[in-house]
């Protein structure tokens, strides 16, 4: 116990808190690794939230809900993909428009779903693991998406680092001209990356409406997508650092609320801006201590590509 706060409960809370951001940020990382900057994460997340919610309510099955959420966001990300990859639109502007569109559309779809409870997503029964002192409460008493999201981070890390697919993806993001010259289909690869990013953002959104706050209300993701974007940069486009960044941000967000609940003497107004300030501070420390290459964004990030032959 420190300051009246139980660390096991704190860890448990931050693991749940971080899931939506972590999922969305992992998806966006893949998109950006392929050289595409999609600022529409918030819009895709909220589409995932409503589509997941509707699917879960209609089918009565939370697992279908997550599938529906992912598909809903994939559909929206496809709009982004067509616009930026086929019609060569500016990625920053298209991403922001995507968020606007997603917020509006989700609210239209959700009009008759306010005040309904979705089917519950239960905790995963981990048997004896859940009885381990400290770790049982902190780590082994969550729903399956908590673990699935960590596995997804691991999977993305492995694929990017060791697989041929990852190599091609990175090549496309670092130099689309060279990748094209080698015969890779730049547009197609980027399009698929965008869809993957949409799917993960959708899962993150569905997690908000199905697990974290099991309900639908307009604007339920409340800016989580923007934080996810910041986390990708924070992570310097490295998957494990996305996990670290999401846990850091989520951890401080949870900690500040816990400190308040425990009656801490630190003024509330400073506590409530702490997650943002500390995230900036940590990135400054990391960026000042390392070589330039370690922090560099994919070289072609945000640039459009058109095969001229």
């Amino acid at each position, binding site marked *: 116990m420190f300051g009246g706060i139980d660390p096991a*409960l704190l860890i448990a809370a931050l693991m749940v808190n971080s899931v939506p951001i972590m999922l969305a940020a992992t998806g966006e990382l893949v998109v950006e690794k392929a050289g595409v900057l999609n600022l529409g994460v918030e819009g895709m997340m909220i589409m995932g939230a409503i589509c997941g919610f509707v699917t879960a309510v209609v089918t009565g099955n939370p697992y279908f809900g997550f599938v529906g959420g992912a598909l809903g966001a994939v559909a929206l990300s496809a709009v982004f993909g067509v616009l930026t990859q086929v019609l060569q639109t500016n990625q920053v502007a298209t991403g922001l428009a995507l968020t606007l569109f997603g917020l509006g559309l989700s*609210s239209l779809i959700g009009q008759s779903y306010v005040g309904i409870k979705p089917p519950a997503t239960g905790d995963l029964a981990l048997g004896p693991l859940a009885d381990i002192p400290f770790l049982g409460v902190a780590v082994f008493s969550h729903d399956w998406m908590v673990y699935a999201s960590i596995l997804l981070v691991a999977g993305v890390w492995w694929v990017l680092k060791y697989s041929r697919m990852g190599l091609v993806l990175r090549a496309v993001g670092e130099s689309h001209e060279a990748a094209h010259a080698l015969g890779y289909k730049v547009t197609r690869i980027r399009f698929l990356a965008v869809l993957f990013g949409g799917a993960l953002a959708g899962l993150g959104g569905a997690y908000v409406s199905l697990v974290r706050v099991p309900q639908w209300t307009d604007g*339920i993701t409340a*800016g989580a997508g923007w934080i996810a974007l910041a986390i990708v940069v924070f992570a310097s486009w490295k998957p494990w650092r996305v996990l670290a960044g999401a846990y850091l941000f989520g951890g401080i967000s949870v900690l500040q609320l816990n400190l308040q609940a425990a009656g801490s003497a630190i*003024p509330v*107004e400073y506590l409530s801006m702490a997650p943002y300030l500390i995230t900036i501070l940590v990135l400054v420390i990391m960026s000042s201590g390392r070589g330039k290459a370690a922090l560099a964004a994919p070289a072609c990030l945000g640039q459009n590509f058109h095969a001229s032959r």
Partner: protein
Amino acid sequence: MKRRTLLATAALGLGLTFGGAAMAQDKTKACFVYVGPIGDGGWTYQHHQGALAVQEAFGDKVEIAFQENVPEGADAERVLTQMALSGCNIIFTTSFGYMDATNAVAAKFPDIKFEHATGYKREHPNVSTYNARFYEGRAVQGHIAGKMTKSNKIGYIASFPIPEVIMGINSYYLHAKKVNPAVELSIVWAFTWFDPAKEADAAKALIDQGVDVIASHTDSTAPLAEAAKTNGAVIGFGQASDMAEYKDGPRVSSIIDNWAPYYVKRVSALMDGSYAQADAWEGIAGGEVEIGEITALVPAEVKAEAEAMRDAIAAGTYHPFTGPINKQDGSVWLADGAVAPDGDLLGMNFYVEGIVGEIPQ
């Protein structure tokens, strides 16, 4: 002042050009400006229910129009002016932040009635204000909380440190303390009216601290959803709307903002010509604050006591802020038997004795 003259000229121009449109109607048009989406399930949702009640009550004689998601400030002034130009006869502005915009537009359209919720400025004869005594509901909740807590720790998720919220915290705490002297209150300031994920986190933080009764002053049902995950260990209350979907779970009662009686009354007065400027601040008695059904989780005797308190407040025989009450620093606020003047409540910026912590500045 030069500016005043300019404004007056503009107003005259607008009035001359468009005054006719508003007059020529036989239907009464009631308009509503909302700060959030109707789908917020809380504050705006309840105001919209009030608007629908007006339509229901008068049928063809009334036309309603509304606009959601109107930001406070410059946009509000424009929206209000457009409403006035569109022929609204009475305009309800349903958020505190519309105060200056309401008064500014009211100056330009003296024939249109403006009703501003939760504010205090009535600079023109055609501006009325209305609010509800939510603290009366908080008293009932506090009583239930004090009786129901097993850990003697109760929690409050607060939005922003404004008198409205502080009033609620004080009322909740005083009545919990009255029936359970050992009770401790933990307050979490979310610094938002609406952020379901953050509200859920705040509830979780309170629960992790051992709190087993949670009241909230934010708009979503997220705190109840979080409490529901404890399988009955933690209870809470519906806020703004009944939040009946959690009735079989943690929601043991609720405060319902019921604007319908007021809206119907005002529109009716406008139609029959008895309308007059007002500063309405009604509570349980006027039907604006409703105590939602107290569920079976609450023992019958506690339920009976809570309902007796509700009825006493409604009958005017009990005021939730009746002395002796000291301020947090120990100084006397209300002497024995004294009842809080409305002015004190409307500007409340202190905790009562016993609450730990400071109000954020």
